[in-house]
């Protein structure tokens, strides 16, 4: 199949990529741009490891063709912080031991970043409901929820006044 050119912005940088039409966004990010932080755990839209943020909304990059990202802005886990300067969610994950093997972690971080940006007051139940679309085999999720709750402050969450 002939390759097609797509133009997209990833973590603030514009890219032009040539891809086969059947290439998923996940594969294009990993192989085309070398952004291997986006992990592919099932390729059929269940595990959530490949979640990226498209124009502010968390989406599964294995269920998108790269071609469908034309002229969209993508944020991957690489866009949320650096090893020497972790973002608030990343720092909270480390503090709460919310990751073990780390394979699913990028998908949790992107999902939660999108959620807390829109809903900084999301409570534990809402957070659990949202990340029920991400599978983790190591942590049992408890620490992930704790980390997300703590990270809310950095997204503008106001603690309710005690009455």
């Amino acid at each position, binding site marked *: 199949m002939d390759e097609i050119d797509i133009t997209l912005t990833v973590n603030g940088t514009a890219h032009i990529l040539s891809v*086969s039409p*059947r290439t998923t966004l996940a594969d294009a990010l*990993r*192989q085309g741009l070398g*952004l*291997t*932080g*986006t*992990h*592919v*755990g*099932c*390729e*059929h839209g*269940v*595990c959530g*490891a490949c979640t990226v943020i498209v124009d502010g909304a968390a989406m599964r990059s294995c269920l998108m063709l790269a071609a469908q990202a034309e002229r969209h802005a993508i944020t*991957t*886990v*690489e866009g*949320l*912080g*650096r*090893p*020497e300067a*972790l973002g608030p969610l*990343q720092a909270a*994950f*480390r*503090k709460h*031991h919310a*990751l*073990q*093997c*780390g*394979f*699913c*972690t*990028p998908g949790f*971080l992107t999902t939660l970043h999108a959620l807390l940006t829109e809903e900084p007051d999301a409570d*534990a139940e809402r*957070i*659990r*409901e949202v*990340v*029920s*679309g*991400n*599978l*983790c*085999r*190591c*942590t*049992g*999720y*408890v*620490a*992930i*929820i704790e980390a997300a709750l703590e990270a809310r402050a950095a997204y503008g969450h106001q603690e309710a006044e005690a009455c």
Partner: protein
Amino acid sequence: MLTGITFPTDAATPVTGTPVERLEDARLLTGTGCFVDDLTRPDLLHAVVLRSSMAHGRIVAIDASAALELDGVVAVFTAADVASDGAVPLIPIRLAPFPESQAFRQPVIAVDTVRYVGEPVALVVATSRAIAEDALELIELDIDALEAVASTDAALAAEGDGVLFPGTGSNLVLRYTAQMGDADTAFANAPYVRTERFSTQRHSAVPMETRGLLAEWDAEHGHLFLSGAAKVPYFNRRALAEALGLGMDEIDLLEQDVGGGFGVRGEYYPEDFLVCFAARRLGRPVKWIEDRREHFMATNHSREIACELSIACARDGTILALAGRLDADMGAYIRTNGGVVPAKAGQFLPGPYRIRDIHVDVSIVVTNKTPVGTYRGPGRFEANFFRERLIDMAAADLGLDPNVMRAHNLITAADMPWDAGKLVPYEAETSFDTGDYPVTLTRCLEEIGWEKNKHLQGTVIDGLYHGIGVACFVESGGAGPRENARITLETDGTLTVAVGSSSVGQGIETAHAQIAADALGLPLGKVRVLHGSTTLLHEGFGTYHSRAVIMGGSAILDAATNLKEHLVAAAAKRLGLPNTRLVVENGGVGSGDRFISLAELATDGPFSANGTFANTTRTYSYGAHACHVAVNPQTGAVKILDFVAVEDVGRAINPLIVHGQAIGAIVQGLGGVFLDHLVYDSEGQLLNASLADYLLPTATDFPNVRAVTLELHPSPTNPLGAKGAGEGGIVAVAGATANAVAAALAPLGVTITDLPLTPPRLWQLISDARAAAEPEH
């Protein structure tokens, strides 16, 4: 006292036993880790495996001509190609090597018979993964069906074509008996005996990262590199060397970040050979990344055991004897793990109780399903479910509080070390090292509020039936024979630790660094841990059986001791003092007011020392789990209102990591109770090879889980006192949870003997019990 001395800047407060944040995390949180699929190479080729879609059959023909014509396809290899180098190699048995198992080993590629859906038949190599998958569809595979046996009953009844290995005459690999004391006499004289049948369903670990390999053949130096190693790289190197006709020094296995192991990952599988074979044959790097669908049929399954269990008790609840028959469905071949899963189920049937008369018959049976291997708590999870259920049943019969009965029978500190006999044919006698088992039960009952809540058993609140269940466990760790490590003080003052343990994502870089940092008195930030790869050490053993901290950590301590000798010698020269006066402490070497920091001393280096730790004994952690459920009788849905696991791990190097292991294991175990199930039909077809149909726990399923880690009785078997902490969290989950569900539904006349406890199954049990209870008209 160090009065008058400037405190060296490198000196560190001890970190062992403290919940320091993990060293692995910065890279894993920012997408800068490196998993095997993140590797790329110039000229890289991609392999996919053509797998049998038939559970049992004779290969008549494989025609790959159309596939080979496809643009981008480089090669298609079948057994004939592999055989051109000699006989098709068999997968060696690493654990529980019953001699009878040898005839049931798996060829690395199907030769003339396929025996399970998913068995490799051909390897396609192409310039991209997508093209290789396109080529798969073009291969014409002609297989004549043979009778498929999809259960142990069918397998044992089969004759003729239904026998997987005609030369063996039977699908029964072996049957053995393990015993202690005289169970027959104890049963004959017992005032109370009960026998029940139980089963646990086939499921598996399903790590988030599927398996993956990248093989590179350096023709110039005759050297093979295989990336994607995990668990037991050194064993796999030996297996590969033999299969490929290479020397051990001509192969290296390299470990990257690993996305979860839980027992199934890192064993020597057919693909390990095939990818190396292809890379050498083609002279180009070949990558294979297992896709999720094939993961379900290619990676080891586990847990499918049926059990008939009998208990003999005195009227006061004293357990007099236990007798069990275990039938293990091993799938189509005996792979690297041999008979270890059923053997451990047999060994752990008596569990943490003072039972002296034990009789266990174990049958190991092959069927036309994916082969079986170890999954976190192998055999223990199953055995615990069987026994703990039966204890609750016996207690009910005897009119006893089941937890009083448990406490009455648990092994106490005064019993230690407890002679646990020789219940595994291929192992020596063993004894439980240390512990006070009733203490963990007491703590667990406090946590779940047993005394205050036990009146809830079987009561209905808002339409839901409440139940509380408890299970006690003992769990082994720290398998030998050895582990090795090397510590190097680099010239920049940092420490590099190389260890034969592997990371499977559990955090050993941090735990090992903590041990090394304290041993040399350096801050954690100065320590770097390298692990797994065979390039690091002459010999290593890896990560399984909750051994990485016990064995690897103890080897690091030994290396540190040896390194200190070198450092003392070097410091002696610098300071002009005799060796005997110098000690390594506070990040330096010194005596009285004469002191040289390791940072300064390092400039004379690097200094390096090896260490090893050998062990023929085992550690035994122990504890209890408790669970409070509410069951909806209309839907069969079960809510976990509270789950708590209490475990004495001897010593926790990093409590944060230990706690994470426990919580993660509990939720994995709850998946095994309610969700995970590899479903086969009677023709041996796997019916749910996707994450949409194979259900794993999600964040909303089991929010109420807690873990309490105790450090009461360190193990005397290793200098750290650790007992291993990776598996205790899963061992008693099915026992406790099933007991809770059974207690909830007891008023309806429901008995729980089989997993999984799915809503449809519980609903059916409730319906059947209600129908049976209705008076006949």
